[in-house]
Every structure is written in C-alpha cells, then in structure tokens.
C-alpha cells in the first residue's frame, strides 16, 4: 500500500472515530444544547468515507467507513455488557384478557401465512413490475436484477412487519391484497422487455 494510501486510511479512521466521540459527547450533554455537536459528529463519520475510499477503493472504503464507528461504539459500550445480568423482578400481573386457546392459535397461523406465503407472493408480483419498469426505462439487465434481488428481501420484510402488526386481521389481509392488485396491474401495463 502506498504511503499516501496509508495516510488516507489513517485520516479516514481518525475522522470516523472523532465523529463517534463527538456523537457520544452530544449524548452525554443531551440535557443541554447538543444539536451542533451531534450533527458535526455524524458529518465527520460520513466525511470519513472520502479518505477511506481513496485508501481502499470504493467498495472496501465504504464498507470500512461503516465498520469503524460500529466497532468503536461497541468497544465503548462493551465494559457494561460483559457483566452478568442480574435477576429480574418476579412481579406477576393479572393474566391478560382471556382468549380461547384455539382461536389464538388460528390467529397465529393466519398471521404466519400472511407474513410468509402471502407477503412473498406480493413481493414476487412487485418484483416483476419493478423488473419491467426498470427495463422499460433502459436499464441493463444486470442493474435491473441487482435492484430486484435487493428489493425482494426488503419488500418481503416490510410486508412481514405489516402482517405481524397488532391490527385487525382483515385490515392486514386487505392491505396485502390491495398491494398485490396494484403491482399486478402495474406489471400487466408494462410490457415484457425481452422479445
């Protein structure tokens, strides 16, 4: 590694860790004025990306810019974390409102079906729409596939959260059905890209 790269690496790591230190200071002063300190800290952490990219290249540089503050913060917090956790209170509150066991199990099963197969189906329909849309605006196939491959887990995760919300089941089911319909219409309106 060239001397300039080593210097950039050191600058990048120093900026990231300085940023982290400022964010911690802002937290320690949270009862008083601390916005500027916090903004500066986060800005420095973002700014650290530039020298790290110079030192390590775009891919490794950005990755390292994320990792350095993470490790620094965990190291700061670790002294309190390696101690044994004490005993919890054994206070017992009255049982919550009763619901027959089988009804609760059925509800859990439906939620699992919503969060699993149903959310996956909506995700796949949305993925088709997304692929056709990006192909329609001239993206290359690898770029479109990258977007879809990253979109699919995120979309499924979001839909799984909606499915597991403590809201009426009919609303959750209707939301998924509506989303599926919207994406299906979108996919049908966008013609297949490859002929």
């Amino acid at each position, binding site marked *: 590694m060239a001397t300039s790269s080593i210097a950039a690496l050191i600058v990048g790591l120093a900026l990231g860790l300085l940023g982290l230190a400022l*964010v*911690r200071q802002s*937290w320690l002063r949270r009862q008083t004025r601390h916005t500027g300190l916090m903004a500066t800290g986060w800005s420095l952490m973002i700014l650290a990306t530039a020298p790290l990219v110079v030192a390590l290249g775009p*891919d*490794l540089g950005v*990755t390292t810019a*994320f*990792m350095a*503050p*993470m*490790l620094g*913060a*965990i190291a*700061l*917090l670790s002294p*309190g*974390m390696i*101690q*044994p*956790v*004490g*005993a*919890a*209170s*054994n*206070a*017992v*509150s009255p*049982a*919550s409102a009763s619901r027959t066991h089988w009804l609760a199990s059925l509800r859990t099963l439906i*939620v699992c079906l919503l969060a*699993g197969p149903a959310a996956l189906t909506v995700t*796949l329909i949305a*993925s*088709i729409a997304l*692929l056709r849309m990006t192909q329609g605006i001239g993206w*290359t*196939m*690898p*770029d479109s*596939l*990258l977007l*879809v491959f*990253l979109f*699919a*887990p*995120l979309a*499924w*995760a*979001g839909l*799984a*959260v909606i499915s*597991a*919300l*403590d*809201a009426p089941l009919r609303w959750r089911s209707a939301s998924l059905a509506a989303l599926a319909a919207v994406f299906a219409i979108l*996919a049908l309106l966008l013609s*297949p*890209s*490859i002929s």
Partner: protein
Amino acid sequence: MAAPARPSIWPDLSAKLVARMLSAHAGLGVILGALLYIVSLSGVLVVFHAEFARWEQPHIVERQSVSPELAQSAAQSVLDHARAMDDTPDEIMIFMPTPDSPRLAGGYDDSYWFIDDQARLGERIDHGFSEFLIDLHYYLHLPSTLGLIVVGLMGVMMLALVVSGFLAHPRVFRDAFRSRKPGNGQLSLADRHNRLSVWGAPFHVMIPLTGAALGLATIVALVLAQSEPEMTVTDMFDTVFGAGAEQTAPAGPLPDAAQALRVVAKDFAEDGLIPWIIQIHHPGEDEQTLQILTAAPDRLIFGEYLQFSPDGRFIGQTGLENGEFGQQAMASVYNLHFGNWGGAPIKLVYVALGLALCVVCVSGVQLWLYKRARKKGPQPRLERAWIALVWGPVALIGLCLTLDRVFGIADSLLAPVFWIGLVALAGLSQFAPSKAGLSCGLKLTGSTLLLIGASAHFLAYGASGYQNPAAWGVFAGIILSALLLTGDALRQPRAGVTPAVVPGD
C-alpha cells in the same frame, strides 16, 4: 429546581404505532428466534470455513503459487484418473493456490484430491466438519434449494425484526450510549439488546440483506423468468455471471491452460486478478472449453471469469471486475456476507459483530420471556427449552467435532446428530433440576467436547503435522472458545432466578 426540558429534536411516533410495532417485533422474534440464532452462530463459524478446511488436513504441503506447466499437468492427471475409472466428467476443475487456501487441488463431480509437485493425485479432500458447518449455515441441512429458500426467509425475517425493532423503540437512537448498571435484570438486558442493535445496525441490515438476496435469488429469478418471454433462469444469471467460454475444441488434448495462465499473469496481474479455478468443460471430448475464474483479493468482488480459446488465447471476460454496476455489485454480495475480503482482521471483526448479533437474538427472546413471566407467572418449561436451544447448539457442535475427529463417523451422520440432539436436549431440559445447572452443564459439556475434539486432532497429526498458520489459529481458537465457555459456566450466578442464557450470565 430542574431546568425546563428542551424540546426534543427527535420525531415522535404515536404510542399506538409503537405498541403495534413492538407486538410485531416480539411476534416475529419469538417464532423464529431459535433458527435465527442457529443461522447467526453458524455464520460466525463459517467466516473461518477456509481456515477450518486447512485445519482438518493440516499436513498438506502449501505453496503460494504453481507453475502453469504444473497446473496443466494437474488437469491431465485428473482427466487420466477419470478415464481410468471409466468416468466421463462434464467438467474438471483445478484449484490454484490462493491466499485463503494456498493448496493445489483438482477433481470432478464430488471427487477432489490434493495434487503434489509431480502433478500426482494425492490425498482426497476430506473437509467433513467444515462442510457440516457450511451446510448448517447455507441450508440448515435441508435439501439445497429448499434450504437456501428457508435460510433466505430467515434473512428476510431478520430484516423485518430490524425494521420493526427501530419503529418499536423510538428512543433507541436517543439512548445510543445508555447502559444501565449490570444487576438491574431486565433493564440492563434491554440495554444490551438495544445498544448492540443500534451500533450493529449496519451489520445487522447488511448481513440478512445479502444473505436473503443470495438465498432468494433462485426463486425470484424463477418467477421473473416465467414472466419474460424467451428467457430462462440460466439466461438471466448469464447476463451477470456470463455463459462461459464460447470457442470450443474437438476431442483430443486438453485446452492449453498453461498458456492461458501465462496470459493471466502477464495481462491481469496489474488489475489484482490471480488465477483461482481452472474450469475445463467436456475435457478431452468434443466441444471442450476453457475458462479461468480469477480471485481479486483487493476487491469486494469474489473474482472475475476469463474465457480462453483452446490454444490459450484470451477471448473475453465476464465483467464482474469492470462491467455493469449491477454485475460488480452482485459479485460483491458473497464476500460482503461472509467477510471474505480483508484477510484475518476483517474475519475477526465479522466474528465480533456476528457474536453481537447472536446476543441480540438471544437477549430479544429472553426479554420476551421476562415479560411473559411478569404477565403470566414463571414459565419454567419455556425457559429451560430456550436454555437448551441456546447452549445446546454449542455443545452439539462440540459433539460433532469430537465424533468427526475422534471416532471418524460418516460425514452424513453429523447433521442428524446435531438436529436430533437439539430436539432431545430441548426435551430432556425439562427434567433439569435448575436452570442455572442446565446452562452450566451445557456450557461445560460443550467446552469438554471442544477440548477433546481439538486435542484428538492435534495428537493425531502432532506439532510437526500442523504445517500452516491457519491450523494453529483454528486450534488456538477452539481451545480459547472452550476456556471461555468454562469460565462463563463457572462465574454464572448459582441462584439463577432467570434463564441464564445470555453470554455473561
């Protein structure tokens, strides 16, 4: 008199939304907690899969490079062996020495051997334990496609937990450095869970996102291919990873891999590409082709495919190294997920962050157990089962190590031993006299089995047999893990009122 509180700069979420998110977060976490923990724990170990493989056969001679002529002769030796066995392999592969695995090996189908300086096939590659760990993490030991999808689903659910977790804890960033005194039971456990979640968030998003993308790519591509006329799944992946070499040679001598390797050394070394796998399709038969997968140790991409004519002239490259953004990014997903991009320091960082993820998984379920105990009274069965599910895998991995190294049982039996053992432990845990005893017993059992397995392996090969630093590193790592487990078991509070499952308890 206290000063008036300053208005917060943080946005407030409605209490109703927070309550709903908390419910979703707990629901998803509890249902999948054990599997998420096992995938995370095995992921921590798989970071070192190359080192485990080198440790399993530590006596194999290692080298930094081999000559093109030796590589060509190695390919011929593999083909000669196949013909002697009346096999007609679709493809033979020669694995060149790389920084991660500085060994020359080659083979076809499921048979691979190490190759010596005279290009003779030597000892068979036998990585039973590291393959057990890899299969556990990649597939949870399920059939490959189903396993990938299930593990992909785990990634999705982990992402869902991150999303719902942040929405359920609106103060989590505000309290990014809060750490209440240990001994405060549920509060300090919640601090541990929340602080590790905040500061590990980029890792906790990146790992499941890349893992789920890898796991779900097949099923997503299958559906996309159905929706696009005249396009198959293979066509789709070929746009990213290439279709292989197109120029073919008739039946006869193998393509000139030696010449191709000289071209790689001359024209691609400056780009940081080094030969990794020589792939010869239809070797010796009609339409044989030559492709070399190169590694790129200074990049996040796993490598670049270079195609050659049968006489070793360069034809083209796929573009993982310098092609479309999508190609480069997709080629980076694997290394980003497995920490295979910056040598030992990055692997150690991944282990630290991976262990933090394990703690988040375990402490999340334990917090749910605390809350359930407060609402409905003690839940001894659930708590014992959870202890078995947390420390059981550690003990069972130790057992598999011992069975593999000491008793040499068939590799195919390791997976049943692990899963049947886990179910049995969860059942037998109900008869444990105390939770603290159960936790302590499992830790000590795991520690003992790890020590036995590592020691037996060391005695089998001797110090002189440990011919590479990776073998010594893995050996030291196993011994250190066993000692840490023992220490953790011995300092555990005896009067365990709570489920003693979080490391440090």
